[in-house]
């Protein structure tokens, strides 16, 4: 089927198209430069056209999510929409059901999402949910930062075996890249403890976060994986943690990248939670200027923000000790899930309120990061959904970024606490994002960071993943009409995925099954086999599941999209 999107105002930062009025053509799911006269014409005159969104970090599928849904029926009840047309019923606000997740991303014009934390032991569960979520391509990142085998290899400095282990495990659990969460802290949580900073060793294993991050970054580049290490550093949410954040970023500076696409060797996730100065919650303040300065001076780093949206949400992370602290703070129901040999995790409902000084400053820190990092290719739009806010708030975050007026209004009307003015520099920043920058932070840049060459842009041969919004970029003043920006970015005029129209006028009109993106490393099969042989006695002794039953069977990945990588050789 051939289509032509007529006369849109196109923003495609990857191909340096900055608000040009032009046609976008696609055929059989791919962008083409010419179509036959039979092509179906869709008139989008003067409307905003972008590649479909790419979410670099979101929690949408997996055991944590299901614990959240299972133990928060009051949240499930908040987002109920009856079944209608092609869509099934939706439930949930901060932790939507799987179908709702797909529909809601589609309505925002998104096409690809990275599921940011997959415990390998329960990877089948994550894949089951990916299969239920419609309309997206999903790349899950398995957790390696507290894996016992990783800890052992990091301690020995055995990068070769670690690389083979990771390469094998990615294939075993169908994962896309290396996720590290509070390295060594997760293991310490096995004893109800935590580690602080990079040099506090994990109990018994006697290995530090410094060693783990370095080893995994080296292994990542040795294998030439499409994504860099994806780091949730230590000390999340602690006042004064920015020093750990800076140290973590410095740590990988010397490691040279092995990729023709991405620039970074470390992706720092939800950096907002890691940019705090002070020593306690009373003298807590923003360290965003320091962190942003480092990012501005170092192109080996990318980050996503994790913007606070001031909603009642559900926090969920593999950072188990942090969640327990949070529970101690707010007293709301605490869920925890420790996974043998691999990771911890925790969940706590949380009410972020503009009346609270700490939450307001957190809100400001996120926006500071967006506004102080100069290069939009280094900072991505996320809310660390659902931690800082549900992903359906992206349009609102976009409206904040595009409107200094709105930000000032919120500060002056006391929609946020007055501490924002004292403890952050937000009120002094008047930068406003333009549509090209929005397209960069929500599409082009995340795609580049994951080496997704087939999406995140509208060049010839790319997937026809396109979003059209009822916004006329040449007429609107986003600074004033921020409400329109929020509304329209939440209700795409068209969401097109692989050439199929999934959303029209904010309504889901077509439902297609999602696909799974995973990385298949080739070329070191012999090394892998040797490593597996070595670790098998430990595996059999300490896991409670047989190796044969551990792997993710093909049955769970019916629509795989393997990214083939030649170990050590950066793919084109």
């Amino acid at each position: 089927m051939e289509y032509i999107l007529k006369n849109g105002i196109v923003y495609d930062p990857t191909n340096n198209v900055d608000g040009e009025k032009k046609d976008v053509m696609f055929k059989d799911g791919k962008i083409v430069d010419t179509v036959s006269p039979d092509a179906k014409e869709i008139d989008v005159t003067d409307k905003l056209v972008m590649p479909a969104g790419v979410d670099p970090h979101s929690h949408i599928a997996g055991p944590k999510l299901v614990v959240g849904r299972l133990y928060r029926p009051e949240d499930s009840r908040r987002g109920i929409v009856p079944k209608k047309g092609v869509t099934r019923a939706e439930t949930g606000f901060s932790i939507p059901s799987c179908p709702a997740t797909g529909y809601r991303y589609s309505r925002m014009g998104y096409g690809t999402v990275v599921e940011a934390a997959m415990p390998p032991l329960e990877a089948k569960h994550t894949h089951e949910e990916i299969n239920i979520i419609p309309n997206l391509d999903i790349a899950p990142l398995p957790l390696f930062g507290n894996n016992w085998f990783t800890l052992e290899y990091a301690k020995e400095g055995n990068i070769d075996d670690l690389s083979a282990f990771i390469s094998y495990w990615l294939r075993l659990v169908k994962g896309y890249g290396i996720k590290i969460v509070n390295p060594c802290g997760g293991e310490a949580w096995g004893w109800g403890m935590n580690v602080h900073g990079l040099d506090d060793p994990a109990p018994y294993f006697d290995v530090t976060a410094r060693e783990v991050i370095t080893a995994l970054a080296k292994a990542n580049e040795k294998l030439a994986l499409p994504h860099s290490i994806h780091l949730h550093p230590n000390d999340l949410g602690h006042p004064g943690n920015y020093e750990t954040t800076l140290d973590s970023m410095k740590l990988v500076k010397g490691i040279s990248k092995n990729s023709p696409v991405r620039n970074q060797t470390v992706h720092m996730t939800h950096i907002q939670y890691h940019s705090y100065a002070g020593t306690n919650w009373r003298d807590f303040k923003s360290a965003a200027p320091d962190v942003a300065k480092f990012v501005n001076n170092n192109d080996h780093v990318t980050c996503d923000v994790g913007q606070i949206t001031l909603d009642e949400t559900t926090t969920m992370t593999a950072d188990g000790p942090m969640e327990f602290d949070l529970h101690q703070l707010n007293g709301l129901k605490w869920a925890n899930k420790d996974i043998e040999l691999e990771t911890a995790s925790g969940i706590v409902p949380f009410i972020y309120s503009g009346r609270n000084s700490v939450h307001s400053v957190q809100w400001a820190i996120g926006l500071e990061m967006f506004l102080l990092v100069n290069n939009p290719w280094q900072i991505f739009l996320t809310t660390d959904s659902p931690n800082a806010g549900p992903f359906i708030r992206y349009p609102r975050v976009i409206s904040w970024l595009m409107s200094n007026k709105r930000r000032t209004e919120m500060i002056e009307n006391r929609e946020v606490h007055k501490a924002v003015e004292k403890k952050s520099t937000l009120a002094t920043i008047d930068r406003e994002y333009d549509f090209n920058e929005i397209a960069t932070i929500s599409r082009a840049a995340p795609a580049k960071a994951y080496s997704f060459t087939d999406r995140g842009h509208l060049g010839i041969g790319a997937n026809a993943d396109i979003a059209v919004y009822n916004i006329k970029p040449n007429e609107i003043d986003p600074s004033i009409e921020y409400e329109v920006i929020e509304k329209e970015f939440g209700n795409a005029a068209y969401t097109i995925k692989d050439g199929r129209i999934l959303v029209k006028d904010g309504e889901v009109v077509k439902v297609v099954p999602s696909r799974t993106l995973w990385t298949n490393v080739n070329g070191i099969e012999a090394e892998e086999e040797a490593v597996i042989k070595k670790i098998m006695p430990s595996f059999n002794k300490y896991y409670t599941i047989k190796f044969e039953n551990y792997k993710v069977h093909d049955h769970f990945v019916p629509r795989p999209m393997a990214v083939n990588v030649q170990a050590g050789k950066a793919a084109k």
Partner: protein
Amino acid sequence: MGYEEPITDYDYKVDNCTCAFCGCNCDDLVYLVKGGEVKGEIKDGVVVSGYIDGGHVIGVRHACRLGASKVMEDMDQRLLVPMIRDEKGNLVETDWDTALDKAAELIANAVRPVFYGWSETSIETMHYGLELGELVGAVLDNQATICHGPSLQAVQNAGYPVMTLGECKNRADMIVYTGNNAMNSHPRHLGRYSTFPRGYFRKRGRFDRTLVTMDPRYTDTAKMSDIWVGFEQNGDYEFYNAMRAVLRGKKLEKDIISGIPKEDIEELVEEMKKVQFGALFFGLGLTHTLSKQRNIDIAINLVQDLNKFSKWNLIPMRGHFNVNGFNIFMAMEQGFPYGVDFARGYPRYMNGETNTIDLLTREEPDVFLVIAADPGAHFPSGANRHLANIPVIQIDIHWGPSTELADIVLPGSFIAVEAAGTSYRMDGVPIYMKKAISRPKTTRDDEWIVNELLKRVQKIKGIKPTVAGK
């Protein structure tokens, strides 16, 4: 039980099979199969892929008594052909088309259909069941409604600090069983996961751990424990409340609380604070005494309090091998774990209103589909009385009390033996259970049966078939 000779006259072995009995889902079983033809690869007498067509499981290694006796065939009780109850009240054999069409017609025309069971079948089957339920506006519920439902309610009120069983095996130096008798209900639980295995940090196994049982009864589990706390029946809530009070530094005023001397409670709390890693396993003894979900509620809160001093986690001792699976499945698909009512076109979850027992005792349902469950044996008589009055469709593998209530019987296949499928262990670890032998030729897979019902109901309603959940 006398001595039994080991089974040696088998032809093939199938390794790493998963036990489809309790929530332990032991995945190290070896099926010993006699006869049949291998459809797949075989290596040194072990079938490494595929299954044995026409084979019979004559022995099971590593399984407990409960698991082995379920896995080994008992053909005399097996449902083999579809049946419909005639005017005289006798179940008579029929063909698949007739039985499925009749069942589909009943479901399509029902006003308050209930689909109950699911805990002993695969997630793959549930996908079709849910699609059917959403289509006709049914209530979907599973055995949690009569077992760990109160636990789920408590989890929803208090939280859910859980772990996988390996955490317990590798780290725990104190194991607490409360309100359950694992030695009888989950016989391999102590041996494979909690008390006896040698873990990474517990190299000496049993000797490195303290085993505590809190139960009014002196059970087989209590007999092998280091500490038995026999609080009075229905005294659970007060007992845990006292423990929490002690944990907060309160001096107890009463001398005896729920039948336990206050000094013993204080000593026990002290012990529990001192351990490195504690694991609490609770069962139906807690969920079904006087304060029901509040017993679990306060036990969860106790575990949360204990985490200020050391590390504690808990796991509910789920009964059926996939009862947790249904709750997980429903939560991911529609946001609520069990007792979900689709009557109004969106899911509603309201304990006491949308649960099977409540609906049956209110005499609301007009069609009842039971799959992989035995309400005839487990439901209160008030609920079963209504079942006797309405059309009941049964999908199961064995003849049981529910068959006596059923009007249409659709014989399924045995997941983890005759059919592959996904299940979730009590701690939420997913396992793909493999198929070892073929099913009896006249029966069908659960997945196929429910999908057929779906297709036929869609046809009656004039709806084009869509892709199922996956």
